[in-house]
C-alpha cells in the first residue's frame, strides 16, 4: 500500500516540477523581455527525448549512469517526508533522517560522474571535476547550518524538525535561527547550479558539461531527475527552514518560492569562474554557518 | 624614403624601383638576393613589421612573382620586395626565421600555388584543402569552373547573370 502512496506522491512531484520549470522559464524570459516558452514546454521536451528513436551506448556505466542519477533523485524523494502530519505522504522517511538525505545526493552525483566518465568526452569530465570541486565547498555552509539546527532542535529527524516549527511563521527556523538559514540558503544557490555558480555545465565554453554525450532516453532520465531533485531540494529546505508544509497547497507555494530564489539570482548575476566559486562558499556562507553554530 | 632606396641600391642589385605612393615603394631583386634584402630591411632599415607575402602567377612567363610587404612602423613607410621565381618546381627560401608569422603565409602559398618553402614549419599542412589532390587551385592553369561542375553536382537550371545587367533588366525593363 505504501508503494501506491509513494508512486502517487512521485507523480505529483514530477508534474509539479515540470509545471514549475515551465513557469519559471517563462518568468526568466520575461526578465529578458521575451515571451518565452509555453508553460508546458518541459513536458514536450521530456516526451520528445523519451521518443528519440536511435540510441547508442558507450558501455555499461554509460547505460547505468542515468539510472544511478535518477535513483539518487528518487531516493531523496523516497526518504523525505512531504506533508507534515500526513502518514500517506511521509514516504520512507522512517528509514533514515537528514543525514541520509544529505548523503543520498551523492549517489546521483556518482552516477552522473560514472556515466559521463565512460562517455569519454573530455568536456564531460571537465564538467564533473568542476561540479565535484564546487560541491565540496557548497556543502560546507550547509553542513554547518544542519549542525546548527540539529543543536537547536536536538534532533536530526526531518519530521521532528518540521514538527518543532509548527505554529506560525515566528516558529520557523528562518526566524528562530536566521544565521543558519542564511548560510544554508547561500549554499542552496550552489546546489541548484544556476548562475553565478553554473560553470559546471557552462554551455558556451564547455558544451553542457557532464551530459554532453547523453541523448534520448538517457537524457530524458537526467531531465526527470533534474525535475525531481530540484523540487526535492526545495522541499528539503522548506522542511528545514521554512516550517514544512501541512498540505499540498502550502508545499507548492513554498517550494515554488524557494525554487524561484536561485532562478531569480541566476537571471540577474553573471557567472563565476570555478576557482572563484569554490572559494566564495568558504567566505561569507561559511562565516554565517560558523556564526550560526556559535550563536545558537 | 629616397634615402633608403639609395642605401639599398648601393648594397643590392635592384632591377626595378616603382614608386606607388610617396611612402610606398616596390623594388625588384633577384631571387638569390631576396631574403638577404629582406633581412637587411628588417635589421638595418628597421622595417620591422612584416605585412604580407603574396604571389602572382605569371603563367605566360612561366614565373611566379613573390612580393614581401614590409612596413616601417615609426616612419610609416611601406616597401614591397618583389622577386621572380621559376614556376616549374617553384621553391623559395623560407623567411620564417625573421618573423614567425611568415610561416603562415608560406603555408598558404604552398597550399594555393604549390610554392615550396623548405624548412618552413608545418608548410605541408593545408588550411582549407584537406585531401586536395589536384593542381593547386590558385594557379592560373587550374580551371575552377570546370572543376566545380565536374565535382559539385551543379543544380540543373541554374543560370548566371551579370549582376548589373540583370538588375537593370529587372528594375528598368523598358530601357
Amino acid at each position: 500500500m505504501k508503494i501506491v502512496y509513494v508512486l502517487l506522491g512521485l507523480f505529483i512531484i514530477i508534474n509539479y516540477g515540470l509545471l514549475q520549470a515551465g513557469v519559471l522559464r517563462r518568468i526568466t524570459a520575461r526578465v529578458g523581455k521575451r515571451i518565452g516558452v509555453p508553460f508546458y514546454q518541459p513536458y514536450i521536451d521530456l516526451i520528445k527525448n523519451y521518443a528519440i528513436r536511435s540510441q547508442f551506448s558507450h558501455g555499461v556505466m554509460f547505460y547505468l549512469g542515468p539510472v544511478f542519477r535518477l535513483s539518487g533523485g528518487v531516493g531523496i524523494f523516497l526518504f523525505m517526508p512531504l506533508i507534515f502530519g500526513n502518514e500517506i505522504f511521509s514516504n520512507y522517511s522512517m528509514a533514515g533522517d537528514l543525514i541520509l538525505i544529505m548523503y543520498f545526493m551523492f549517489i546521483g552525483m556518482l552516477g552522473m560522474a560514472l556515466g559521463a566518465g565512460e562517455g569519454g568526452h573530455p568536456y564531460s569530465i571537465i564538467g564533473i571535476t568542476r561540479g565535484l570541486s564546487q560541491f565540496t565547498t557548497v556543502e560546507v555552509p550547509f553542513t554547518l547550518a544542519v549542525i546548527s539546527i540539529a543543536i537547536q532542535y536536538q534532533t536530526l529527524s526531518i519530521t521532528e524538525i518540521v514538527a518543532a516549527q509548527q505554529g506560525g511563521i515566528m516558529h520557523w527556523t528562518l526566524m528562530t535561527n536566521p544565521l543558519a538559514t542564511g548560510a544554508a540558503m547561500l549554499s542552496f544557490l550552489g546546489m541548484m547550479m544556476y548562475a553565478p555558480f553554473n560553470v559546471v555545465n557552462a554551455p558556451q565554453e564547455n558544451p553542457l558539461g557532464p551530459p554532453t554525450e547523453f541523448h534520448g532516453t538517457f537524457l530524458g532520465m537526467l531531465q526527470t531527475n533534474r525535475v525531481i531533485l530540484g523540487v526535492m531540494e526545495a522541499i528539503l529546505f522548506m522542511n528545514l527552514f521554512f516550517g514544512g508544509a501541512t498540505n499540498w497547497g502550502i508545499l507548492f507555494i513554498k517550494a515554488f518560492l524557494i525554487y524561484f530564489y536561485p532562478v531569480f539570482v541566476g537571471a540577474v548575476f553573471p557567472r563565476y569562474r570555478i576557482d572563484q566559486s569554490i572559494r566564495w562558499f568558504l567566505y561569507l556562507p561559511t562565516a554565517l554557518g560558523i556564526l550560526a553554530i556559535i550563536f545558537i | 624614403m629616397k634615402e633608403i632606396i639609395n642605401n639599398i641600391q648601393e648594397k643590392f642589385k635592384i632591377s626595378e624601383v616603382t614608386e606607388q605612393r610617396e611612402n610606398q615603394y616596390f623594388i625588384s631583386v633577384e631571387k638569390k638576393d631576396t631574403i638577404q634584402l629582406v633581412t637587411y630591411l628588417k635589421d638595418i632599415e628597421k622595417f620591422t613589421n612584416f605585412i604580407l607575402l603574396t604571389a602572382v602567377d605569371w603563367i605566360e612567363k612561366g614565373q611566379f612573382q613573390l612580393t614581401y610587404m614590409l612596413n616601417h612602423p615609426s616612419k610609416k613607410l611601406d616597401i614591397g620586395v618583389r622577386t621572380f621565381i621559376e614556376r616549374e618546381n617553384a621553391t623559395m627560401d623560407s623567411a620564417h626565421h625573421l618573423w614567425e608569422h611568415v610561416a603562415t603565409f608560406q603555408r598558404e602559398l604552398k597550399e594555393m600555388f604549390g610554392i615550396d618553402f623548405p624548412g618552413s614549419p608545418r608548410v605541408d599542412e593545408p588550411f582549407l584543402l584537406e585531401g586536395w589532390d589536384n593542381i593547386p587551385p590558385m594557379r592560373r592553369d587550374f580551371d575552377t569552373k570546370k572543376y566545380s561542375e565536374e565535382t559539385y553536382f551543379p543544380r540543373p537550371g541554374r543560370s548566371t547573370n551579370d549582376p548589373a545587367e540583370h538588375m537593370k533588366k529587372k528594375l528598368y525593363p523598358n530601357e
Partner: protein
Amino acid sequence: MVGPIYIIAISLGTAFSLGFFKKANRNISFGLMFFAMAFVTFISGQWLYAFLSHQQETIQIFTAGFKPPFSISLQMGFHEAVFLTMINVLGLLSAIYLFDHLKEKGANMMMVFMLLFMGLNVVVMTRDIFNLFVFLEISSITLVGLIILEKKQDAISSGFKYLIASGIISQILLIGIIAAYYYGGSLFINDMVDSNLLFVKGGSVAVFLILIAVVLELKPFPANGWALDVYQSATPGIGAIVSGAVATTSLFILYKLLPIGGDAWLLPIGITGVISFLGSNFLGINQKNANRILGYSSIGQVGLLMIIMSLSKDLGDKFEFVFFSILISHYLAKAGLFWISGIINKDEIGQWNIIKNKPGLIVLTGVFMLTLLGLPPFPSFYGKWELIMNLAHSGNFTWIAIILLGSFFEAIYLLRWFGKTLMNNENSEELIVKFHKIFPAVISSFLILMFSFLTARWSGLMSVKYFIPFAIALLLFALDFLPVFIKNIMAIATVSWYSYVLIYQTYIPENDILRIIFGFIFLIGAILLLFPGFTFKGKRRGFYPLVILMFSGLAGLIEARTTFQFFFAWEMMTLASYLLIIRGKNAKKTSFSYILFSMAGAFMMFIGFGLAYFETGSISLNALADVLIYANWVYILVAVGFLVKIASLGVHIWLPDSYTEADDDVTPMISSILVKSGVFGLIILMLSMSLKNAASSNIPYILGWIGALSALIGNMLAIYQEDVKKLVAYSSIGIMGYILFGLSMMSHLGWLTAISYSIVHFLYKALLFLAVAGIIYRTKTRNIYEMGGLIKRMPLSFISVLIGIITLAGMPPLVGFAGKWMFYNAVILKGWYFQGAIVFFSGIVAFLYCFKLIHNIFLGPIKDNHRKLKETSVWWLIPQFVLIIGIMIISVYPKIILEPIGLYLSMYFPGEGLVWAGTTASTSLGYWDATQIMMVFAGMFGVIFIILFLMSRKVQVVEQFNIVFQAERPERPETTHYAHNMYAPYNKALGFLAAPFITNSWEFIYESFHAIGDQIRKFYTGNGQTYALHIVMYVVAFYLFINGGF
C-alpha cells in the same frame, strides 16, 4: 682445569717460537698460532663454563710465589672469564679472518698478533696496576705494530697519531701510578680500592690521573680523533680487533679501576659517557665512510656502556644483565660489521650496494645493524628495555632521554647506511667472498642469535611461546630455496593456524570483542592479503619470514598484557614492516623515513612506559590506568608512538612514499592492517588512561583536532596525486585522521564510529589497494593518467573499485554511510561542531579523489597499449571478492558488527549508544535503518533500470572515439583522456592547503642536523698534534670539572 697462567705461557711461547719458522713454513706457523689461540680460547671458555655452572670460585694466581702487593697477581673470576672468552673468541675469529694477511706478512705479524691478544688477556686478568700499565703498553705497541706491518699509507699516518696519543695517555697513567704508589703505597688494585686513596692527601690527583688515562683509553668524544683515524684507515680486520677486543678490554679496565675512584667518580664517568654517546653518534650522522661510521658507532656504544657503568647503583641487580647484553651485542655486531666492511672493501657507504645480489651478506649486515640498534629480538633490545625501565624506576629521566636521543642518532646513520646497502646496483662489479672472510661474520651472527635466545630467557620477560614465530620465520628462511607457491601456502597455513588458535580458541570463548575484532583484522586480513602472493614468480627471497614476523608482531600486540610484551611486539612489527617496505625497488629513501619516524615514536612510547613504570611500579598494561601524577606525560608520549603509526598530521610524511614504493601486495598489508596497530594501541591507551583518569582528559581534545586536520590534509593531498598508490595512501592518512577523531571523542558513539570504521576501512582499503595492485600488475604502471578505459578489459576490478569508493565516500546504501551517520550523531552529541565540520568537509573532498581514482583508471578512452589487457589474475580477485562479500553483508545488516561493539563499549561508556529496534538503529538525534534503505534502494534502482531497459533495448554500442569532439576527430587516447592534473582549478582555489610545509619543515630539521654535524666535526683536523692537544685539553677540562672548577 688448565690454569689461566697458561694463557700467558702458551701465547708467549708460541709467539717467540714463531720466530724460528722460515718464510716457507708459513702454513705451519699459522697453524701453530691458530692452535695456540684456539687453546687459549679453550682455556678461557673452560673457565667461563666453570663459573657459569657455579662450580668455581674466583681464584687468585700469584706469580713469583708472593702475595700481593709484593708480587704481581692475576685474578680469574666470572667477569674475567667472560671478558677473556670474548677477547679470545674474537682473536680466534680475527685470526681466521686475517688468514691471508697473516700468511702474507709472515711470522712477524703472527707474532705481533699473538702478543696483542696475550697483552689484552693479561690486562684483563692482572690485579697489579703497574703490570696493567705494562701490558696495556704491550698491547698498544703490538696494535700499532700490526698497523705498521699493514704498510697502508694512510694507516701509517693514523698509526702515528695513535702512537702519540697513546703515548701521552700512557705517560699520564704512569704518572698516576707513581703518584698512587707514592701516596697509597701499593700497586695492588684491591689494596688501592680498600685504602680509600681519594681521601689520602694528594691521592685524589693520583686517582684522577689513573682514571683519566683509562677514560682516555676508551677514546671519549671529543678527544678521540686519533682513534677514529685508525678505525677508518686500518684494515677492517684490525678495526674489528680495536673495536671488539681492545675497546672491550679498556671497558674492563675501567670496570676494574672504577672502584678506586669510588662513588664520586660515577657521575663524571657517566657524563663522559653521555658526551661520547651523543657527540659521536651525532657526528656519525654525517659520515660517509663505512669504517669511520663504525668507529663513531663504536665510540658511541662505549659511551653508552660507560653511562651504564656509572648508573650501576641505580640499576641494582639488573646491572650485569644490562651491561653484558649491550656489550655482547655491540662486540659481536661491530666486529661483524667490520668484517663485512673488509669483504666489501668499499670506503663510501654509497658503494655498499655491491652486495645487492648477495642475500647472505645482506642478512648478515641487517642482523648486525639491527643488533646495534637494539631492535627485537636481538639481545640489546632486552638490555635496553631493562636499562630504561630500571632507570625509570629510579626516576632518572634525564638519562633516559639522553640514551634514547643518542640511540636515535645512531639509528639515523645506521639505517641510512642499511638503506644504501640495498640501493639498486648499477655497476656490475662482482664481489668475491672468500670463505675465511665470511666465516667469522657468520659465526658472530649465530652467536648473536644464540644470545638473543639466552638473553630473552635470562631476562625472564619472555616465555617460550614468543619464540614460535621466530622459529617459523627461521624455518621459512631456511626453506627459502622453495618456490613462492609452496612458501605462500605455508605462510597462509601458518597464519590460519595462528588465527585459529588466537581467535577461535582464545578470544571467542573469552568473548573479548575488541580482541576478536582486531584479531580478525590482523589475521584474517593477513590470510586474504597473502593470496596475491601466488602471482609472484621465482623465489621471493626473504619475503615470507618477514611477513610471518610482521603478523606475529601484530598478533603479539593483541596478546600483550604487559608493556614489555606490547613494546616487543610493536618493535618487531615495525622492524618486519620496515624490512618488507625496503624490499620495494625504490623504497630505500622512504623506508628510511618510515623507520626513523617509527623509532622516534617507539622511543617516545618507551619513555612513556618507563614513566608509567616509575609511578606504578608495574609493567602491566592495565597499570597505565593507575598513572595519576604523570598521566599527561605518559599519555602524550605513548600516544605519539601510535600517532606516528597511523600517520597523523605532522608525522605523516613517511606514509605516502612508503605505501607507494612497497611491493604491490605489501602495500595492502601495511595500509589496511598494519596501521590498525596504531588504532589498536590508541584504543588500549585510551581505555586505560582517558576513561578512568580525569587528569589526562583534555588530551583527547587535542587529539581530536589532530585527527580532524589529518583528515582534511590527507584528503586534500590525495586529490592531487598522479601516482595511484600514492593517492590511496594519502587517503589512508585522511581516514586514519577520521578514526583518530572518532576515538578522541571519548564517547560511546564516537568509539562505535571509530571501531566500526576500523573494520570498514580494513575492508575497503584492502579492497582498493588489491584492486589497484591487480591493475598495476597488468598495466605495469602506477601513473594514473597512463591508464584509462580499463572497465572494458577489467570489469571485475572495476566492481571492486566502485564498491570500494562508494564505501569510502560513505554513500548509502553501503556500510560507509553507517560511519558517517554515527559520526554526525556523535559529533553533535559531543559538541565538537567545528572539528566535525572539518571532518565532514574532508569527507566530501574525498569524493574528488574517489572519482579521480575510478575515472582515470577505468573510464574514458582506453590507451593503445592496454587494448588487449586481460582481467587481472584470479589471485588478486579472490581476496577482493571476499572483501566485497564482507562489505555487502555488513551493509545489509550492519547490526551484526555494531551491536556487539556497542555492548562491549557500554562496559566502558555507559553513555548514550545506539538503540536497536529491529533493523533500525537510533540515537536521541536520529535514526537509520540500513536494511530498509538497502531494500528501498535496490527496488528503486531495479525499477528504474527496467524502465530504461524497456525503453531502450536497441542500443548501438559504440567505441571509445565515437564522441562529440566539436566535429573533429580525436587522434590519440592520450590527448582525449582528461586525466593528468585533473583538479587544477581546485588547486588554484584551495591548493594552499596542500602545500608541503610539514615535509619541508621536517626536511629542514634533518638538514640542520647535518649542517650542524658538518660544522662540529671540523675540529677533527686530521693533525696528530691537534689530537694530542685535544687530549691535554680534555684532561684539564675534566680536572676542572671534577674539582668544581666550572
